[in-house]
C-alpha cells in the first residue's frame, strides 16, 4: 500500500526535477479548459477540505473568546489533553524504535521472507480502526483470552490507559518504518560498510553515518505518527470505556461534548486538534523542501 500515506520519497522526486508546469503550447490545453479545470479543482478542495476547517473555527468562537477559553480550561478537557500527550509520548517513541530496527534489518541485509515482513508491517493500515481496538478487548477484556488471569492479578489493561496506548500503537505501527524503508533502500550500504572497515562500531555507525542521511525521513515519519496517535478515534473509542477525566482522550472528549449538545465546547477542543494537524502539515512541507534541496545538492 505504498500510496496509503504521503511519502517523502515521492514528494522529493516531484520537487527535485524541472517544473513541468511550463509546457509548450501544443502540449497543453487551451486557456479556457485550463481555467475551467483549475476552477473545478479549487472549488472541490474549498468545499471538501477548507469549508470543514472554517466551520471548526466559526463554531468554536461562536460564543466569543471567553467560552472558548472556558472550554479549553475545563478540568475534563485538561485531563483529556494530559492523557492524549501521555499516549503519544509512549506510542510514538516505541514505534520509532521499531521503525528504525525494522528498516535496518530490511534494507541492510538480504534474507528470506523480506517481502512478507514488509507486507505484515503495512497490515495495520488495512485494518479498520474499530477492529484494531476490538482485538485488544478480545485479548485483555473480562471475557478475553487473558481476561481471567488479569482480573485475578488485578491488572487493568482495557478501559484503562494501557489499552489506549496499545490500540494507538497498533494504529500508528507502520508510519516510521514505511518512511524509512524506501529511503534507506535507495541509500545502499556503502557508507556504513566503509565506516565498519575503518573500525567503527555498530552504534557509532548508525548515529554518525546512517542517521544524518535519514534524519529528515525519520522526522517525517515521526510527525505523521504523532498526528495520528493524538487524533485516533475509532480504535481508542473501543478500548477506552469513556470514563470522564480518566480514560478520555481529546478526540473522545470531543465526541462526549458533541453528544451532550455542548457544540461550542466540542468545537473549541476540536480546534486544538486542527491546529495540531496544520502544524504537522507545515512541518511536513518544510521537510519536503529540505529533502528536495539536499537531493539537488
Amino acid at each position, binding site marked *: 500500500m*505504498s500510496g*496509503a500515506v*504521503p511519502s517523502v520519497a515521492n514528494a522529493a522526486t516531484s520537487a527535485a526535477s524541472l517544473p513541468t*508546469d511550463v509546457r509548450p503550447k501544443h*502540449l497543453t490545453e487551451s486557456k479556457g479548459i485550463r481555467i475551467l479545470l*483549475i476552477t*473545478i*479543482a*479549487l472549488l*472541490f*478542495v474549498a468545499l*471538501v*477540505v*477548507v469549508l*470543514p*476547517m472554517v*466551520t*471548526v473555527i466559526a*463554531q468554536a468562537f461562536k460564543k466569543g473568546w471567553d467560552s472558548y477559553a472556558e472550554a479549553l480550561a475545563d478540568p475534563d478537557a485538561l485531563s483529556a489533553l494530559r492523557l492524549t500527550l501521555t499516549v503519544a509520548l509512549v506510542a510514538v517513541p516505541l514505534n520509532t524504535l521499531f521503525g528504525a*530496527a525494522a528498516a*535496518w*534489518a530490511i534494507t541492510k*541485509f*538480504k*534474507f528470506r521472507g523480506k517481502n512478507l*515482513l514488509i507486507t505484515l508491517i503495512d*497490515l495495520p493500515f*488495512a*485494518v*479498520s*480502526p*474499530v*477492529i484494531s481496538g476490538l*482485538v485488544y*478487548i*478480545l*485479548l485483555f*477484556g473480562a471475557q478475553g483470552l487473558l481476561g481471567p488471569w488479569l482480573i485475578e492479578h488485578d491488572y487493568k489493561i482495557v478501559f484503562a490507559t494501557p489499552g489506549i496506548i496499545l490500540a494507538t*500503537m*497498533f494504529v500508528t*505501527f507502520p508510519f516510521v518504518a514505511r518512511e524509512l524503508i524506501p529511503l534507506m533502500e535507495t541509500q545502499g*550500504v556503502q557508507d*556504513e*560498510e566503509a565506516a565498519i572497515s575503518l573500525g567503527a*562500531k*555498530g552504534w557509532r*555507525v548508525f548515529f554518525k553515518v546512517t542517521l544524518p542521511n535519514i534524519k529528515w525521513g525519520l522526522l517525517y515519519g515521526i510527525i*505523521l505518527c504523532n*498526528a495520528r496517535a493524538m*487524533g485516533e*478515534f*475509532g480504535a481508542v473509542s473501543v478500548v477506552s470505556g469513556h470514563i470522564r477525566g480518566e480514560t478520555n482522550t481529546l478526540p473522545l472528549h*470531543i*465526541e462526549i461534548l458533541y453528544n451532550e449538545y455542548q457544540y461550542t465546547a466540542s*468545537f473549541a477542543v476540536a480546534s486544538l*486538534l*486542527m491546529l*495540531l494537524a*496544520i502544524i504537522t502539515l507545515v512541518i*511536513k512541507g518544510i521537510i519536503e523542501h529540505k529533502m528536495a534541496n539536499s537531493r539537488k545538492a
Partner: protein
Amino acid sequence: MAAQVKERRVLPGFRITLGYSILYLSLIVLIPLAGLIVKTSGLTLPQFWHTVTSERVLASYRVSLLTSLFAALVNVVFGLIIAWVLVRYRFPGKKIVDGLVDMPFALPTAVAGIALTSIYAPNGWIGSLLDPLGIKVAYTPLGISVALVFIGLPFVVRTVQPVLHDLENDMEEAAALLGAHRWRTFRKVLLPELIPPLITGFALAFSRGIGEYGSVVFISGNMPLKTEITPLLIITKLEQYEYSQATAIALVLLIISFALLLLINTLQRWSNRRLRAS
C-alpha cells in the same frame, strides 16, 4: 551456503534488529489479530453463518460498500482533475492547495466528523440551502459518502500525482505531430498510463472507506438497516456484550480488507512493471 551468507553480512546488528522487529510485530499486531480468529472459532459454522448473514448485518455491509464505492468514484474523478492541475498548470496558491490535499490524513477523524455534520445538517451552511430542495445529506447514506469523500481524497491525488509527473512528453509530442487534438491525445495516450494509478487510488480510498468510523459516525445518524455502517455495528454489538457476534462481523470485515490489500499490492506491482517497461 551458510558461509556465503555470512560473508555478505559485513554490517552488524542483523539478528538483534530483525529479532526485535519480529517480536514487536508479533506482540502488537500478529498475536492480537490471531486472537480474533481464535475467538471466532468458538462459534460453530452455522452460528457464524447465521450471525454474519442476519438482516441487520447484511444491511450494514450494503451501506458500507455502496457509500464507499460512491465516494471512491467521486474521488477518482475529482482526484484526477486535482492531480492534473497540480502537476501541469501554474496558478496562485498552488503550494497551499497541494498541502491542503493532505489535510484529511492529518485532521483527526472526529474533528472532520463533527465539522461535516454541522455543515450538512438541515440547519447548517449547506444543509439549509439543500433542505428546501428536498435534498437531505446529514443522517442519510449521502452524508456517509460526503464524509468518505473527505477521507479518501488524498489517496487518489497522491497515487496519480507522481505517475503523471514522471510521464515523458515524447508520446504526447508524437500524438500532437500526427494531428491529434488534446482530448484525443488524453484519451488515447495519457489515460491508458493513468489507469493503473487511478485504480490503485480508487482501491485505497474504497478500502479506507469500508473501515472508516470516526468521520462517519456523527453524520450517518446510525439508523439500523438504513445508515448503520459495519464498523459501527461491531461497536454496537460490543456494547451489548455480544462478543462473539461482534467478532464474527469483524472477521468478515477483516477478510474484505485483506482481499482489497492483496488486490492493491497486485495492482501496484502491475503499475510499477508498466512504468519500468515504458
